[in-house]
């Protein structure tokens, strides 16, 4: 029995298990909770899921590009925080407490530019100076938790921005009136559509362009790529910088929906960067998979909120929202245990050096 057989058989077993559990959960939902489904699965639920998933999906795509090319960017959460504060600061700088919609788009662009610049330094540390990828990533998180609120207090002498503006939904006349579909497709946040485009483009880029091939090669067998005449580290610089910029974008998009920056506690980013990492692991390093995983996590979160709104109780007792909030983290561990071994690019975390 070869290792391959073993893992695959294990995956089959666990896959079956997963299916069964889901079915069981559904049954429980309807029977025990006697869920009023029409109150749970509303159009708003779907829209909120889409909006909630966008920042996670964006950051996740950045993260998977970096990891596919062999660099583990554990700093996503930190870069998201930097992206959020930069966007807020830019918005405030341009439009004060009442920025216009163009200001918002501009602010997002500025946030991306800033995090991109920041990530260049980070990439140099990781690739040229072979920094410890875990510790450096955590450091970015610490710095985000520190410097972002600090910057806020410089601007607004409190760690929170005043209410700025959040992005408006576009609305297609008439079409938006169509029940369900209308308000999902034709009355939607442009950033959701934008994210969708990014997801598709990054999928095409990864699987249909030569650069995409190189990225996969750099992470799986850098020597092969090198002997094929492509500079491995240049590829890795590109992906790491991209990952930071994407996380920044994710943070900016989060802010553009929220409409204000909050730097207390874990800041408004509040763990989305970590979920992003898990999303792309779950999504098997495939941009579309990662986006779907982001949808899943956001969906679970919104479902949890819908349960609260519809006051679903378990045997008459309220389900603690605080405990329900932990579901994604538990999910992550299960996911990693099932998928853990199989798909990690083989040379993640190893700095690449030519011989001689």
């Amino acid at each position, binding site marked *: 029995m*070869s290792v391959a057989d073993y893992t695959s058989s294990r995956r089959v077993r666990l896959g079956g298990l997963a299916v069964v559990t889901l079915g069981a959960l559904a049954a429980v939902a309807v029977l025990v909770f006697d869920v009023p489904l029409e109150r749970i699965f509303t159009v708003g639920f779907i829209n909120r899921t889409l909006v909630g998933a966008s920042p996670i999906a964006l950051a996740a795509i950045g993260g998977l590009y970096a990891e596919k090319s062999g660099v583990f960017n554990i700093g996503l959460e930190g870069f998201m925080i930097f992206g959020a504060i930069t966007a807020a600061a830019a918005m405030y700088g341009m439009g004060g407490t009442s920025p216009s919609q163009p200001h918002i788009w501009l602010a997002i662009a500025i946030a991306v530019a800033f995090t991109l610049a920041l990530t260049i330094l980070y990439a140099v540390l990781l690739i040229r100076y072979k920094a410890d990828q875990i510790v450096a990533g955590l450091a970015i998180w610490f710095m985000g938790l520190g410097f972002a609120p600090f910057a806020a207090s410089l601007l607004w002498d409190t760690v929170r921005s005043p209410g700025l503006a959040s992005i408006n939904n576009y609305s297609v006349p008439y079409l938006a009136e169509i029940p369900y579909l209308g308000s999902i497709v034709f009355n939607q946040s442009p950033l959701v559509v934008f994210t969708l485009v990014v997801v598709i483009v990054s999928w095409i880029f990864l699987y249909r362009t030569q650069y995409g091939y190189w990225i996969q090669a750099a992470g799986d067998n850098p020597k*092969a790529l090198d*002997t094929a005449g492509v500079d491995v580290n240049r590829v890795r610089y590109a992906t790491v910088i991209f990952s930071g910029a994407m996380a920044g974008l994710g943070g900016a998009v989060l802010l553009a929906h929220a409409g204000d920056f909050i730097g207390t506690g874990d800041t408004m980013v509040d763990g989305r960067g970590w979920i992003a990492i898990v999303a792309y692991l779950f999504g098997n390093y495939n941009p579309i998979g990662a986006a779907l995983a982001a949808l899943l996590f956001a969906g679970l979160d919104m479902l949890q909120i819908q349960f609260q709104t519809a006051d679903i109780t378990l045997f008459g007792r309220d389900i603690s929202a605080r405990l329900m909030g932990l579901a994604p983290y538990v999910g992550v561990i299960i996911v990693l245990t099932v998928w853990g071994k199989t798909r990690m690019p083989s040379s993640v975390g190893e700095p690449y050096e030519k011989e001689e």
Partner: protein
Amino acid sequence: MSVKNEPAKVRLEGITKTFGDVVANDNVDFTLEEGTIHALLGENGSGKTTLMSVLYGLYDQDEGSIYVDGDHRTFTSPQDAMNAGVGMIHQHFQLIEPMTVLQNVILGHEPTVNGLVDEDAARDDIEEICSRYGFNVDQHLETPVEELDLGTRQRVEIVKSLYRGAEILILDEPTAVLTPQEVDGLMTLMEDLRKAGRSLIFISHKLDEVLQIADQITVLRDGAAVGTVDAADTHEQELARMMVGREVLFDRLSRETSVGDPVFAAEEISVLGDRGLEQVSEVDVTVRESEILGIAGVQGNGQTELAEALTGLRPVESGKISFRDADITETGRRRRIELGIGYIPGDRQIEGLVQNYDLVKNALLGNQTIEPYAKNGWLDWGAVSEHADEIIEEFDVQPPNASVRATSLSGGNQQKFIVGREIGHEPTVMVAAHPTRGVDIGSIEFIHNRLIELRDDGLGVVVISSKLDEIQKLADRIAVMYEGEFIRTVDPDEVTEEELGLLMAGKRLEDESVDADAEPVETDSEAQS
């Protein structure tokens, strides 16, 4: 082959390449004529891969120059070499396992239409190549490489080179990892390539293959070219002599006649290699006290796996291993060390030493639970560093300083230290894999004497080596390993080095060869996959 008057396809002049104190290539001249297959022969470490790495731009030579089609070239990267039409198929494949065959083939040279990779165009080109040379990888173009067997992977490597317009193909030990059928497939393939006017360099340890396919044969020894002969006017005996032909520096020491009782035995064990393929098939090994069992064979024929199975580093798929009548098939590595089964590992770089430890710490490696270095979990560094000094002293390790880190030692000294340490365990059985690989002549003699002393002290010793003279000199019994089996067990006094060489190359002696040269089976890769 009719020698053309136009310049040779490739000419290497006076190539010298050193790694630290190791002279890997010593002023080597080499000429490859257009449309021919030129074989490189030589023992492990004789410099074949290095020479080719120089030609492929992986290493840049310390001295010497490279000419392709008569023009002087300097290759600073494989890219340069490829542009000059040189392609190399590495012994260890350079493929991206999760990516499809097609993607691997075109990696770095992807045809694109408005930004996107044009896989259809690529597919056409590849199919064209395949049909021209009668490859059959085109059925696999969409298959991820990880699902292919080694033979097919190798063909993918070759297609890769051809796709990049390689005129000159270097194949480093392409057959080392192939099954007999796959080897035959490869042979026909090389024929076709030659017919199509490609020029090939073919590295192998297996004489029959070389004679079967090559036009010229160049033999390397200790980094220097000993000579080039036409395959037509040579024979295996001559080649074996050229390869091994250094004078044996000292005669075989007279051997204790009385061979003791069996201490260590393996019955019909089968072992899987790292790739999950069976590397050892139902082999019986019996080690007796006061005897050296030599296991001869070219690397990649399963010796390493066998050694690891005997020493507890690798599980056996089937069969039984016993030590002094006790069944130790399931016994772990540590316990076997404690039982006194010593092991001189084949790969000193990775296994034998912790490169960043000084020699004192390295002296403890494997001794963690052995008195006096450790008593119920506590280490006695005093004893350990004494031990280290003893080893250094007794095995004259240079520099004689236990506080230097292992990395800073030359390969030979590293090896002497390891041997010293493993002998220090006072084992009952010693398994030594390539005990003198990459070690200088003086140290070789020294290590050999120690192994013989062990034998004389009544130990059972197993020596695994691909060096004929080494086996000849040490062994009381020689088992020749080929394709994961013992094809023959011989008495060293009744076999010549040439005969041994032939055996290692899969040739039966008197009796006609059986499987190794079975007539080409047209089924291959996909039939097996």
